[in-house]
């Protein structure tokens, strides 16, 4: 399978924070969910891919092209939503159409206005009057309207209500109906990712902690809930991390089927991405 995005040994040093050897690949036609705490390095990684930050090392290829050398060519086919809004507040959505027409060769005004009406966004009101959710929708509409092949979205669903999130998720799934298109999507709303992400990349403290297909994570991983005496009987190599709460032990295991085969009738819960993040970061071994 061909990769639309390849990140190899990406590193970047700030005072007090370091991105260390980030590597991952995103195949064509797939959605990758990017998760991690605030400050883990998600946005820095995304900004490096887009070549917005400087002085990083490593190799990044988008559509097989070098992200620094072929910067212009790449941006033509990438749709971006960043966490911080980049439109001046005095603009109205109509202005954005005029600006983008001159920016992107493939800008599709009809598509843009279709998204505006789908999202119930006014064409003639200044952005400063928009709510947080409306701004997000405007950014998403803009990101999609030049027929990109890769969407890079940093927290695209934050600030959206459940109904709007649903609409947006539908649009993302429509987007990958074309097998040539992929999405890299960072989100704290992990339930959104559980539904649509093919791959999960989990970044913590500037390093990749875990990289798996979402199916494998949700299907195989589990949380064993047990008493202290049961926990003491467990082999250290049979679990990833554990956390002690007031009433029980929560133990993260990589393969719940094999675990229950070995240890019998423990209570094993199916895992959510949220549980996984909490146990990986707060848990101990």
């Amino acid at each position: 399978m061909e990769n639309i995005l390849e990140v190899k040994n990406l590193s970047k040093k700030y005072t007090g924070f370091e991105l260390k050897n980030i590597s991952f690949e995103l195949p064509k036609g797939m959605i990758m969910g990017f998760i991690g705490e605030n400050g883990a390095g998600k946005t820095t990684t995304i900004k490096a891919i887009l070549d917005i930050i400087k002085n990083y090392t490593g190799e990044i290829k988008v559509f097989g092209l070098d992200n620094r050398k072929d910067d212009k060519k790449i941006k033509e086919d990438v749709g971006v939503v960043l966490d911080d809004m980049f439109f001046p507040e005095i603009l109205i959505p109509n202005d954005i159409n005029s600006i983008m027409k001159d920016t992107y060769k493939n800008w599709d005004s009809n598509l843009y206005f279709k998204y505006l009406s789908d999202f119930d966004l006014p064409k003639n009101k200044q952005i400063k009057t928009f709510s947080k959710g409306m701004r997000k929708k405007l950014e998403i509409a803009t990101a999609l309207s030049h027929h990109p092949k890769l969407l890079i979205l940093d927290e695209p669903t934050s600030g959206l209500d459940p109904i709007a999130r649903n609409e947006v998720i539908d649009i993302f799934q429509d987007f990958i109906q074309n097998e040539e298109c992929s999405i890299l999507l960072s989100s704290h709303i992990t339930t959104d990712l559980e539904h649509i992400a093919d791959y999960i990349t989990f970044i913590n403290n500037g390093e990749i902690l875990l990289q798996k297909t979402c199916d494998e994570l949700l299907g195989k991983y589990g949380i064993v809930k047990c008493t202290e005496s049961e926990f003491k009987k467990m082999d250290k190599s049979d679990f990833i991390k554990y956390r002690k709460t007031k009433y029980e032990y929560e133990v993260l295991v990589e393969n719940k089927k094999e675990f229950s085969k070995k240890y019998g009738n423990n209570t094993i819960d199916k895992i959510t991405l949220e549980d996984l993040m909490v146990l990986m970061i707060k848990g101990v071994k």
Partner: protein
Amino acid sequence: MEIIISNSSGVPIYEQIKEQIKVKIVSNELQAGELLPSIRTLAKDLRCSVITTKNAYEELVKDGYVRNVPSKGFYVAEVNKEVAHEEQLNKIEGLLDSAVTIAKMNNISKKTMNEMLDILYEEEK
């Protein structure tokens, strides 16, 4: 085609899809030669990832229920009743295996197990 996905059952979603399509094929609700929805359409409609539907289809191909015609799509295969039967036997063997493991762990004799099986069969009648 109706497929009902439970997000809380603990059964992996690809398996739920696979099993439900199998049932539809065995019960002739899906006829041999019928074109199944594409991996991507199905993922979108079920609101799951593409890899999930791909896994489900690949397993259906492996089990002989579905044919993959490259660049055309996935079609319902002519299901060999023997294959279907064999598969049910495998499933039973798997379940019995778990039962035997528990029995051995708890020193329950083969005789007791046989008796249990006899009783269960009698109940069925």
